[in-house]
């Protein structure tokens, strides 16, 4: 018999246990932020948690209004001062953590725990704005579980539950909620464009490509191993020397600096292109870089990204900056010819050189061109010069002055791809050959785990394109000086002076294997989970048999699925829960079944003692067994204190019953 008792104040111990659950939930959820935010916020949250627990432990009252109000204002001011604003993701996260700390300090009854929980959920969301790696899944599951457990504990009027029971109940709720989550995740109508975008990718964090190229200003190229994009080929994979991924095309040169001016370029319609040669089909998953350019293998003709166009420089450009990881499929042809209506004007711009800059280069170019039989011959002579004279490939070139091309060609002769591309394009333009510098990536590492090509920021490259015989021709002058750079990638091409500990690490077999495995998992995660959006949702519905799925279909399908799930849940709660059978009774029933199999069937009304007596008469040989089992059973059943059966004796009974083999008729 249970009893419903009059409401009473929770005991000190109960209050303490509840607070402990709350603090565990709060600290777990703040975990990803604690190392990211300003140190004083971390210290404040930890300190306040410890303080609050000490108050509860000593049974002291929480701080009065005269301490709390100044504390709130001081904390808000401190956040504003630290981040110089209170909006934006970073400042917002800091603000949430400070609010959380203050709320914990204030929580007296636990009824406003729902506010603490809400702050926790917003914090989890804020963590995903920064990063959405695989750890997000356990983070969500444990974070929500802990707040559910804390809610269960706090809403108990009676004494708190033992930890095991809370965990069981919480696990039940979470497991039942998971199917609902999955259905909503896949079927909730996704909309393509954000309402208002707040950049979550810091603009300063970019490495790799830029919309300017200024070789003279770089004295050391820092290389980042972070992934620029991943590619999965549908069919053939191009050889390493053909993996030119086109990015921003630099057409404007001011003597020092090449710049990207494609935004103003006319949009090219695909119908005007003449294509030929082999083609490659692939899906490219681009990490966010905050700019408009998209990467594509030379030269893209078809692409799945809606809001993207091909510029006259054959560059794929997105109409909105790439702020989230996006995936698109594309088809690239080896040879593309275009018939521009205004070819002359187009290429005329690519001949332009600022007057007065790099005079030595100009003079040298005119002389060399006069010696050459044709444009091609002239360009080949330049490449021969790079190849035969003492030009070096290095990531630590000297800084160059006002006429960087002059200095590079005739003095330093040290540089990396950008120097060579810039110099080559300048030389071409000096001989009145239209030329442009293309930046992008070269190569990529093929992951044997999933056949993904991983292209890293350190694969960034620059090369040139020249207008020969009415067509654009790719020339990679870096190949002349460091041909292995094309074949092997940047890492291998570096000379011994560029020894790098990390590179050594990366080259050990085991480490490389581990990195590649991890990348395969991450790629799958990005491809199937993080990239899920309006397009994949449409595909999902089409695969499910909808011809032209629209919003109404989605909502209908979602509503039906959720209703079915909830009906199943209601059914389970109503009929599905069975009480656990009493282990003692179960053991005895096994015993009776054994006897019944041997021919002695227990009547319904027969008590254990009388049944044993009858069975012993019928089975004289098993008499001692029957009696010892029955005696033990009766003792455990009727003489146990309360309903708790001693485990040792129950085990003994189970053993006896297991060993019992009655002789049959």
């Amino acid at each position, binding site marked *: 018999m249970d009893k419903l008792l009059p409401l009473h104040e929770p005991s000190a111990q109960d209050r303490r246990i509840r607070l402990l659950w709350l603090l565990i939930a709060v600290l777990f959820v703040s975990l990803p932020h604690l190392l990211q935010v300003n140190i004083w916020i971390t210290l404040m949250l930890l300190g306040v948690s410890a303080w609050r627990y000490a108050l509860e432990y000593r049974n002291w009252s929480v701080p009065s209004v005269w301490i709390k109000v100044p504390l709130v204002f001081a904390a808000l001011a401190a956040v504003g001062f630290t981040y110089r604003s209170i909006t934006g993701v970073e400042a917002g996260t800091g603000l949430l953590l400070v609010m959380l700390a203050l709320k914990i300090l204030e929580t007296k009854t636990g009824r406003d725990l729902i506010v603490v929980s809400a702050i926790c959920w917003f914090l989890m969301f804020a963590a995903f704005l920064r990063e959405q790696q695989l750890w997000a899944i356990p983070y969500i*599951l444990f974070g929500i579980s802990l707040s559910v457990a804390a809610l269960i504990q706090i809403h108990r009027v*009676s004494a708190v539950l033992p930890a095991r029971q809370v965990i069981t109940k919480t696990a039940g*709720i979470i497991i039942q909620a998971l199917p609902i989550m999955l259905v*909503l995740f896949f079927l909730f109508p996704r909309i393509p464009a954000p309402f*208002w975008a707040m950049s*979550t990718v810091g603009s300063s964090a970019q490495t790799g490509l830029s919309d300017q190229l200024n070789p003279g200003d770089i004295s050391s190229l820092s290389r980042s191993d972070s992934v620029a994009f991943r590619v999965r080929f549908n069919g053939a994979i191009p050889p390493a020397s053909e993996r030119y991924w086109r990015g921003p095309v630099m057409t404007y040169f001011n003597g020092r600096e090449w710049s990207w001016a494609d935004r103003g370029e006319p949009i090219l319609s695909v119908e005007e292109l003449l294509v030929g040669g082999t083609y490659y089909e692939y899906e490219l998953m681009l990490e966010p870089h905050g700019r408009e350019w998209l990467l594509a293998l030379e030269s893209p003709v078809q692409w799945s990204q809606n809001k993207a166009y091909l510029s006259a420089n054959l560059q794929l450009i997105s109409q909105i900056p790439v702020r989230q990881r996006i995936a698109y499929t594309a088809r690239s042809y080896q040879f593309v010819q275009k018939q521009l209506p205004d070819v002359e004007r187009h290429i005329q711009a690519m001949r332009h050189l600022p007057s007065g800059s790099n005079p030595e280069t100009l003079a040298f170019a005119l002389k060399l061109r006069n010696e050459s039989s044709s444009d091609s011959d002239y360009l080949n002579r330049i490449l021969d010069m790079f190849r035969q004279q003492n030009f070096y490939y290095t990531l630590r070139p000297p800084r160059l002055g006002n006429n960087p091309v002059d200095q590079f060609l005739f003095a330093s002769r040290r540089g990396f791809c950008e120097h060579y591309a810039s110099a080559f394009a300048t030389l071409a333009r000096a001989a009145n050959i239209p030329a442009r510098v293309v930046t992008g990536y070269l190569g990529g590492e093929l992951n044997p785990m999933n056949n993904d090509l991983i292209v890293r920021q350190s694969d960034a490259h620059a090369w040139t394109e020249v207008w020969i015989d009415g067509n654009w021709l790719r020339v990679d002058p870096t190949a002349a000086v460091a041909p292995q750079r094309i074949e092997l990638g940047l890492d291998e091409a570096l000379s011994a002076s560029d020894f790098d500990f990390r590179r050594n690490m990366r080259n050990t077999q085991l480490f490389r294997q581990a990195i590649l495995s991890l990348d395969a998992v991450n790629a799958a995660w990005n491809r199937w989970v993080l990239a899920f959006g309006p397009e994949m949702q449409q595909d999902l519905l089409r695969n499910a048999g909808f011809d032209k799925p629209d919003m109404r279909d989605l909502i209908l399908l979602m509503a039906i699925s959720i209703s079915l799930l909830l009906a199943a*849940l209601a059914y389970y709660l109503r009929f599905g829960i069975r009480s656990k059978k009493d282990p003692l009774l179960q053991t005895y029933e096994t015993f009776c079944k054994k006897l019944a199999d041997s021919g002695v069937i227990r009547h319904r009304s027969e008590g254990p003692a009388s049944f044993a007596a009858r069975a012993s008469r019928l089975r004289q040989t098993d008499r001692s067994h029957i009696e010892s089992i029955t005696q033990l059973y009766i003792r455990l059943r009727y003489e146990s204190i309360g309903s708790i059966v001693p485990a040792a004796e129950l085990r003994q009974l189970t053993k006896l019953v297991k060993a019992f083999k009655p002789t049959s008729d």
Partner: protein
Amino acid sequence: MKGPAETLCAISAGIRNALRERSNQWILKRQGIDDVSVTLHRRRTYILPTRAGAFFAVVVLMLLIGSLNYANNMGFALTFLLTGVGLVAMHHCHRNLAGLCISFKQAKPVFAGDKAQFEFIIDNTDALSRSQIGAGLKEATAVCGDIRAKNRAIFALPLVTSKRGWITCPRIELSTTYPLGLFRAWAPVHMDLQALVYPRPTNRLQTILSASSAQSLSGLSLIGEDEFSGLREYRSGDSLRNIAWKSAASLGILLVKEYKEGGQTPLWIDWSQLPYPETETRLCAMCRLVIDADAEQQVYGLRLPGVTVSPEKGHSHLHHCLRELAMFAPAKPSRS
């Protein structure tokens, strides 16, 4: 002087109360008056979000808008898991209450001014254990507790009494906010229950005694116990003081010593003999006399206008008398 905030609070409380009254009227009309034992079927278990539940919904909505805005898939996962938790919690909350069977056990008579205790039994016939079931009169939850699977629980709801007669138990409400406090499921039960309230016995016995005529109280001059006449089997209502414990222990049955009553003159507690002008005061004084007479093992009788309880003693006689006092309705005109 009331501030605008207080006025607003008062208005919202007024609206809430009015709404609650309307819904209760509707529920009563829908369910009718219940039997003394009633199973809380699903269709009579109601559920609404609590204030925390409404807040939760707003938070989930904000998270959803954030996720849509940033097209953040882990944000969606978080939002939708919370949605799932909310929906599951709603079902758990409703199921936690539905299917319980509440039966009225008893309501022992009390003296006016004491709390009448309406006792109930809740049967949980399911294999599902019930957590944090609250019960109370009207909206206020008075008691709360867990009920294990296939078990029953008892509880008592106190009701303040002020005057004698029958007191009616108002609507009973069973409720739960388990598991997360986001929803509150409740089941109103309208049983037609009454408890008897005896008049409050007056303290001023001395006054009564001195004011009373010697004639009516002649029976009070009793000395000791009567002559022992023999043993008989225990009947309910016998005073514990008369049980022959030694014989009972040896024989295994309860025996009661019987005394000859021949020498005892019955005490009459008589309405007309008491000097109070007011009906209620007089009844209170009579109540005191009845209780004292019973405590002293007297044989006593009760005389009220129109009602006479013949002299006897024992537990059931006491309650018979008290009941007559509680129920007494003076004829018009009230005084002879």
